[in-house]
């Protein structure tokens, strides 16, 4: 059943990366059927009509698959509901009179662009340093030419579910990006197509990750925050592959 509730919002406002930010308080009446982002949209409409600056917040697909909309809601990445992105969060998770604190994702390598929008391009830089496979273009080979074991395909798919939203870094007390990087690595290392560049890729992506982010202490907060429930097992997988990449004689990589 839908009802109309009133929530007290405490939203982080910051004009630009250089300026210091502050919390601004708002009160918003909203039906519980509305999504979280719709609630912000309505707030912004009100602000606009009053001639005030609307709250900057990122969103794109609004169906939980693009990873654009992440914010910290009451200290939790993507809000209180498990395995849910901010855009898929609905106001029925809150009750009348609740105070909702909305902050951007925090890490030194996620600088705030404006209000709740952060620059997550270090993730792009991690991908750019190795998160791809190299294939010759031209005549495409038959899709079924390379058999993949069902378990490996499942695992690659689980890892590929990562939408790169940055919730893992935001939730991590160390601001470590292990869960993101390991998911991207496991996605390709599980499949035959990812094998030729596997060791170089692991070295490069971990190297880039460590230029930007902190060090993992195995708290497990990232997995809890992750809207796609990426498993901690991938982090162990990455640690193992990284050491193999460093130690292995690649001239003998045909020998397992």
């Amino acid at each position, binding site marked *: 059943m839908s009802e109309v509730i009133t929530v007290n919002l405490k939203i982080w406002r910051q004009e630009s990366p250089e300026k210091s930010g502050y919390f601004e308080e708002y009160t918003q009446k909203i039906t519980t059927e509305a999504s979280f982002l719709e609630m912000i949209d309505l707030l912004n409409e009100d602000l606009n009509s009053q001639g005030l600056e609307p709250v900057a917040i990122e969103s794109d697909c609004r169906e939980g698959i693009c990873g654009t909309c992440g914010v910290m809601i009451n*200290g939790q990445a993507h809000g209180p509901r498990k395995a849910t992105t901010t855009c898929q969060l609905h106001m029925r998770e809150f009750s009348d009179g609740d105070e909702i604190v909305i902050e951007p994702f925090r890490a030194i*390598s996620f600088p705030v662009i404006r209000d709740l929008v952060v620059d997550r391009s270090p993730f792009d*830089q991690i991908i750019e340093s190795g998160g791809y496979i190299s294939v010759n273009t031209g005549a495409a080979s038959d899709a079924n030419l390379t058999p993949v074991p069902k378990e490996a395909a499942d695992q690659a798919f689980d890892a590929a579910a990562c939408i790169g939203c940055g919730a893992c870094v935001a939730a991590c007390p160390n601001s*470590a990006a292990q869960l993101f990087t390991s998911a991207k690595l496991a996605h390709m290392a599980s499949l035959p197509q990812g094998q030729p560049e596997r060791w170089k890729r692991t070295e490069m992506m971990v190297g*880039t990750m460590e*230029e*930007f982010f902190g060090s993992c202490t195995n708290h497990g907060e990232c997995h809890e925050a992750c809207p796609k429930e990426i498993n901690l097992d991938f982090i*162990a*997988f990455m*640690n193992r592959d990284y050491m193999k990449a460093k130690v292995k004689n690649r001239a003998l990589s045909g020998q397992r």
Partner: protein
Amino acid sequence: MTQTTSERYRVKPIRDRRREWPFPLNLYQTAVGRKWVMAVTGIGLLGFVLIHMIGNLHVYEGPAKMHEYAESLRNLGSGILPRSLILWLLRLGLMVMFGLHLHSAITLKEMSRKSSLNASFQGGEKKYAGGREYIAASYASRTMRWTGPIIALFLIYHLADLTWGWWLGSEFVPGDPYHNLYSSLSRIPVAIFYVIANMALAWHIFHGAWSMFQSLGINNPKYNHLRKGFAASFAGLILLGNLSFPIMTQANLIDEEERLCQVSIGNTDEILACLTKQLEDH
């Protein structure tokens, strides 16, 4: 694969990739490699803690047996090598492992702190104004950097107390660990300190003995469920054994009244000779 061209990006790396050291030292330059070092030294230190605890159970066999155990440590490999050489090599190994464990922990923590600088910090932890509630992180994992220093300080105290005899003064008898242990732990503040320090140690092990599997990449869904159980039982075993010493001393189960070789009989050599004779008579 080419190096990232970061010119297109506004967010710059907060640390540079330094020139690579020769293998295997280059492993220590990376955070993932450093976590390996932490896990491997952690395993070594776990082994020490376990053997130390089991060895000390000899105290329940009385002063003579405890003396024999201490002597046998010094006599390790004595038929071939000079006396105490193996013991000193083991001590050296422990010092190296402890140093590396500490150094990697401190530098990795610093790396994480620098990566979270624009978040507010309370009690050394990244905090959000929305009141961050931990969901997965256990109390043990969040307090590693508090239990660690407690253990390090305790270690120094423990060495000064029972190896160097700083606080026991004339009561300290080198080579008679039973007497030294009794004299030290029969003082209530010391006993309390030992209890606290060993609880910190068990907390530390509770997270560390699980976390090391992740750091080493030892992960298999077939046995993953056993890892937490292993860590809990290891920590519990160490806690049980180590707590028994201060508690049993306070409960007078370790005491000196029944002792055949009373410490008052004379100087150190006479006490040790008496203990050796008691062993031979036995």
